[in-house]
């Protein structure tokens, strides 16, 4: 399968390709590109006990695109439809949303409920909770949770 050079190894963060001729994007490999869409925030469904979590996925690619293999591409929050596949240890196609703690969370594929903090490795080291149940019911104002954990870390060095 031929590599689609025009759309390989490029940064399309936040951009959509809906206006592109689907033939340009079909029948080949797209390698090492970033098509990730920004994690949205929705105030009425941004903590663990919310009901009706919305999907953050965005339609990025045009109808009619087919037989594309995405290799090592970042496809977070992108809808991948039809006969297109995502492969490679560096590929991602996660659902991500901003929750009330101001951070980005990976969502459950089925329920869209938050399940893993994108900053889990950092908070884990700082001894901060990465339990989605601890996401506040109201949006945090002012300093982020991250900056508070920094202060805590400094104080304990």
């Amino acid at each position, binding site marked *: 399968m031929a590599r689609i050079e025009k759309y390989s190894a490029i940064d399309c*963060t936040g951009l959509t390709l809906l206006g592109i001729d689907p033939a340009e994007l079909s029948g080949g490999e797209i390698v090492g590109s*970033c098509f990730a869409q920004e994690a949205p925030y929705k105030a009425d469904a941004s903590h663990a006990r919310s009901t009706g979590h919305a999907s953050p996925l965005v339609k990025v690619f045009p109808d009619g695109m087919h037989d594309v293999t995405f290799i090592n591409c970042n496809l977070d929050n992108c809808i991948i439809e039809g006969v297109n596949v995502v492969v490679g240890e560096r590929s991602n196609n996660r659902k991500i949303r901003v929750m009330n703690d101001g951070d980005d969370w990976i969502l459950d594929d089925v329920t869209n409920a938050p399940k893993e903090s*994108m900053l889990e490795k*950092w908070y884990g080291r700082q001894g901060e909770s990465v339990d989605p149940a601890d996401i506040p019911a109201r949006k945090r104002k002012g300093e982020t949770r991250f*900056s508070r954990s920094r202060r805590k870390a400094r104080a304990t060095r």
Partner: protein
Amino acid sequence: MAGIATTYWEIDPASGNALNGGGYDSAAGTTDYSQTSGGILSLSDLANSGAGVADVSSTMGGFTAAMVGNYLQIASGVNDDPGFYRITAVADTNNATLDRAPDTGAGAMTSAVCIVGGPFALLTDAFLEDTDAFIPGNTIWLKSSGTHSMASVGTARDGLTDGALTIAGYNATRGDTPTGDDRPLIALGSSSWITDNRWHYHNLRFTMTSSTGIAADNYTVFSNCKVENTSGTSNRDALKSNSGFIKSCEAVSTNGAALACTTGSLIESCYFHDSLTGVEIQGGSDYIAVVGCIFDTISGIGVSAAATSMLSHRVSQSTFYACGTAVKSTSAQSGWAITNCIMSGTAGVDIPTSSQSYLDHNCYNNSGTDVSGVNKGPNAVDSDPLMADPANGDFTISAASPCYNVGLGIGAAGSVGTYKKNIGADQTTYGGASAHQTRLETIC
């Protein structure tokens, strides 16, 4: 351990392969094959004579003395322990010695598939976490041959005081120090890049929309990097640095701080622009130094200190243009020294009277309120600094500028010659200056 501190690793998105050897001991004095597309030797019959033996053989052969110091990667085989191994000696075309035995301990390794040399295509978490291969003192070279699309990097590994973990970009030749779009691009999307202490990043570009673009813990160095967070969500930062050294970098965060920093951070010769905040000093932080920087079109505050920030912050030799406020703090504890700064098209300095701060030799022009809570000092300049074309990014001054040669300088005692500085980030001497002056003006 396979790793040796003098190892270079190579990543080239255009020609690399995940199965290549990827590394070379830069002190070996042989031939570096880590940049050779496809590697220099591929074998499928690598073997050793028994468990624990570092000598390996291949009937296919092809080993040469020039390969000493290069790494081979074993991908599969019988009784093999997959990973990276450094060639330490070559006896002949069929026999070599590795830095350690490549077997699992269950018996002789046979039919191992490996490649000597060749770059990787991807920077992966697995490699950054591979303590057998990537160790303090090592440098990962990233070639600017395509976007490095990344989805979350998070590693708790530390460099050492005498050996950082380094990732350096280049364009055509290692060490060519590319600028602008010639620097390799790492596109994080909605992900973050998190590393622990003593990492060094050189000549790289990062884009992201995540809540924290890059989070770097103690003693991390960024030089000649551009970090851009274009998120539409509020409170999103491009770069967070804890006690780091940020030099000659460019940072943008559309709806947050271009740089958020904590105690002991040194920020020198950087360009912060088109952001809500330029530099945000976070709560509980002491001793922040901002030197020789340009703050351009910062809708909020150029240098902002949290209400709980602590003592002794310094801002000098910097230029603030088209900002909401140049420097603002609500912390009564934070003593400031602000000298040799141009504040043009921005409100000036707003810090509590009780902060016991020192300001002087600053230029205030069309700035709204010049100072609140503090005094300008006796040597303030209240006129147009005559920057060349600040609206189009040229913040230089000419010898005709009222900021030329009137900055806070070095005391005369014990020195010979004229020691003066300009106000603002531009320290060009415009001829006639002594060699002493040119040299000393770069020391802030």
